[in-house]
């Protein structure tokens, strides 16, 4: 085997700065899971089809399996671990998935949450069709998507009723702690 020199990278993951020296061939998925221990980013197909590894790269959803860790040098990443404002509170979208049974085995869920956070940021009141189109890049083999769509709609309704809740951008989140929606103040399903 040829000796290939390692490359120094520095990046921010969920607001935390990291510096590492990595092999150029290391995928961003493996970097997050093996180097940083952030195993919430799941590895499914490893060729960009299933969407389980979706993360936010500078606020845009991307496939972490279709990126080398070295390509993320000087970037800001948000993984599913970065969505919840604290260890005892869920992100409103996660809360809605819980309540509306938007997951069964949970394997696809991290990628779906990340994709839907980005969708709701761009389109806070999506129609069911827009939610389904937004989900097209994430495969779920358990739910038939019905409850996923319900959960996204539930979260969208609550967030629309209480603007200013955390769909905030990753870069802002580094400095400002997001405000969480108390469940008692949340709107009903509708």
């Amino acid at each position: 085997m040829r000796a290939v020199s390692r490359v120094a990278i520095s990046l921010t993951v969920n607001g935390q700065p990291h510096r590492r020296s990595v092999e150029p061939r290391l995928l961003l998925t493996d970097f997050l899971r093996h180097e940083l221990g952030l195993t919430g980013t799941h590895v499914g197909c490893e060729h960009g089809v299933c969407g389980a590894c979706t993360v936010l790269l500078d606020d845009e959803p991307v496939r972490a399996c279709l990126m080398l860790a070295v390509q993320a040098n000087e970037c800001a990443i948000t993984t599913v671990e970065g969505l919840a404002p604290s260890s005892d509170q869920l992100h409103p979208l996660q809360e809605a998935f819980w309540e509306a049974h938007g997951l069964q085995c949970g394997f696809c869920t991290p990628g779906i949450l990340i994709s839907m956070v980005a969708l709701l940021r761009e389109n806070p009141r999506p129609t069911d069709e827009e939610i389904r189109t937004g989900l097209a890049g994430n495969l779920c083999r358990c739910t038939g998507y019905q409850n996923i769509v319900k959960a996204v709609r539930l979260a969208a309704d609550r967030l629309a009723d209480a603007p200013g809740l955390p769909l905030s951008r990753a870069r802002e989140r580094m400095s400002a702690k997001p405000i969480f929606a108390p469940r008692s103040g949340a709107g009903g399903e509708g």
Partner: protein
Amino acid sequence: MKPAPFEYVAPRSLDEALDALSHADEGTKVLAGGQSLIPLLNMRLASPKRLVDLGRVKQLTYIAERDGGYTIGAMTRQSALERDDRVSRDVPLLAEAIRWVGHPQIRNRGTIGGSIAHGDPAAELPAVAVCLDARLTIKGPRGTRTLPARDLYLGYLATTLAPDEILTDVWFPKATPGTGYAWLEFARRHGDYAIAGVGVAITLDADSRASTARDPGRIAEARIVVTGVDGVPVRASAAESLLAGAPVTDRHQVQPAALSASVDALRSAIDPATDVQATAEYRRHLAGVLLERALPVACQRAHLTPSPSGRGLG
């Protein structure tokens, strides 16, 4: 799954990138958005010795109005083109086809130059470039050359790009009034490479745009490109010539006889391959069906384009 080891170079300017590629051989690959190359690395269908990553060459990311069209830097992300109002208005075939590229998560990384230089015959952007006669700028140690997109492609994933050259920008002409476009493709699963796809541009003659119910006019020019039926994007020139001069109906449609003649011409001109996704016969049939559906859409849109006389819905 892991790529085989390689050396990695991340230049910060085009000059640095060209330097990094000087004396490069087939073992060196240029990395743009990586949405085609990284899957090949992951599956070890490709194992280059060296990757030159253009991700930090900021000067290759732009959309500039030039020479009656737009020059687009090779590293411009597909999602940036998708969101650009100028592209939607003036290069509608590109805007329509780009929404068929993978998924939003793919288009956030995928670049126009990467897709065109990779040259997958089932991909949308090489076909759009061939359909619209896009002009490519290629830089290398022997200087700068420009060529029409169709001259880039030699065969399956094979192009005239030398290992030491970089595709730096792509120029697309603006849509002219009286021209309507349509992109249509079919895949078994949304976002996959299509089994076949069709891009169409129909230009009505000037009289047609001021047509009366008594004389609805004619098609001046037709451009048809097909994906997934050969090693390169294919222009259906026989079908194109059959449509040129064909009269349109009073409902602003291609006449049924001309429509079916062009579909037949397309089906007999192509020689698709059989693979795990579809048989050759299925692909041939599908390409015809897609053309049959895309032509009426393009024709209707051509009639509705804005015109100086204020006709049409714009």
